């Protein structure tokens, strides 16, 4: 059993100690530090990535809130503009209506004045005509010339009183119409 039970093999002791120490040295110097470094690097990378993702998410959330706020503001603005233009429209309509009314009133007034003036002119002409005709008729009936001025004055008075009666009738009619 000397070969299987081999507890004092000096060459094994010697080489094993040297080999194992060299192996330990090499692994401690060339293998473990880069692996440790790599693992730490990756860990910090992952941590950084997580931080970044969280930052991005919070930024996105802020942005979303900002957009929502802007949209809300725009909606408010639109409502306000709409309201204002509605108000303006109503005011304009009112103004136009008032102006049209006034214009109409003015036109009616003017027309009425025109009518009055025309009527007066016509009346004056008719009166002249009537006075002339009456004087002429009277001359023919009497067969002689009458004092034209005196006659015309009498006729004018008669016409005046007639006119007064007629005018009273017209103005009564007008007041009923308006």
């Amino acid at each position, binding site marked *: 059993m000397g070969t*299987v039970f081999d507890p004092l093999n000096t*060459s*094994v002791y010697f*080489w094993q100690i040297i080999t194992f120490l060299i*192996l330990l040295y090499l692994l401690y110097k060339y293998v*473990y530090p880069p692996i440790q470094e790599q693992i730490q690097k990756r860990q910090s990378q992952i941590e950084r990535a997580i931080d970044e993702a969280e930052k991005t998410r919070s930024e996105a959330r802020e942005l979303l809130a900002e957009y929502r706020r802007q949209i809300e503001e725009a909606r408010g603005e639109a409502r306000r503009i709409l309201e204002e233009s509605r108000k303006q429209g109503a005011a304009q309509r009112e103004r136009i209506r008032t102006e049209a009314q006034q214009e109409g009133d003015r036109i009616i007034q003017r027309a009425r004045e025109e009518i009055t003036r025309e009527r007066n002119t016509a009346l004056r002409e008719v009166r002249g005509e009537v006075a002339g005709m009456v004087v002429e008729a009277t001359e023919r009936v009497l067969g002689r010339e009458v004092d034209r001025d005196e006659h015309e004055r009498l006729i004018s008075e008669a016409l005046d009183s007639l006119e007064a009666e007629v005018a009273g009738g017209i103005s009564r009619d007008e007041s009923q119409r308006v």
Partner: protein
Amino acid sequence: MNTVALAQMTQDDLRSEILYTWETARETWAIPLSLGPVDISINKIIWFLWIGAAVTFLIMFVGARILKDRPGAYQVIVEDIYGFGRNHLGGQMAEEGRKWFPYTLTLFVFVLTLNVLGLLPNSYPVTSNLSVTLVLALCTFLLVQQQGIARNGLGGYLKSWLPGGLPDNAFGKFLIAPFLFLIEAMSRLFSQPATLAVRLYANMLAGSLLIYVFLSLILYFGAATALVSVPVTVVFSAFKLFVSILQAYIFAILSQVYIEMAMFGEEH
């Protein structure tokens, strides 16, 4: 003794066939060397020791050279080996003990490589040599004592060998305490390194021997025995692979535990 008629060999022949690997190792591939009166010849044992060390180093070194931010499969394996040492070997009793995990991880990978190399045909299972495992156990032993004394001082370290809760009287102090101290001293100075070495040695030797025994039975009982021997050998080889991993782990974890027990013995 009337053995089977086919047998062409004596039992002594059979025995030397089984033990062939161990009996011839010293003379195989030998380069005689000596350091004064001490024989330090290089032979098959030493060659395979070196092959194992070289393979161990290359496995780890290549892994450490090809490190990238996006790891490939090989890098993941090496990093996992490292992470296994860091998280499962180191820190058995206290976080400070984690600083020795590179040592025990080296032990683990080295022993595992030597164990697995021993499965190859015509190799020498280095860990089935008691001198090899004794040297490894001795390294751990020296490190354990050095750490115990360095961290606690010689007095504190020796005091930590005494278990707590002894009766606080003359009986406890002068009879039980020295007795327990003696037992603990024997355990720490002799049993721990011895069991560490013998456990690995015996397991690996038994695994190899079982395989050779079953294969040698073919020589002894004839070719028909192969029908039984070969399947059994396959099963035992698989089992030996499992034992290789298990024993490497046990050797490493016990080394770590012994180191940390010496460091933090007083606190526990």
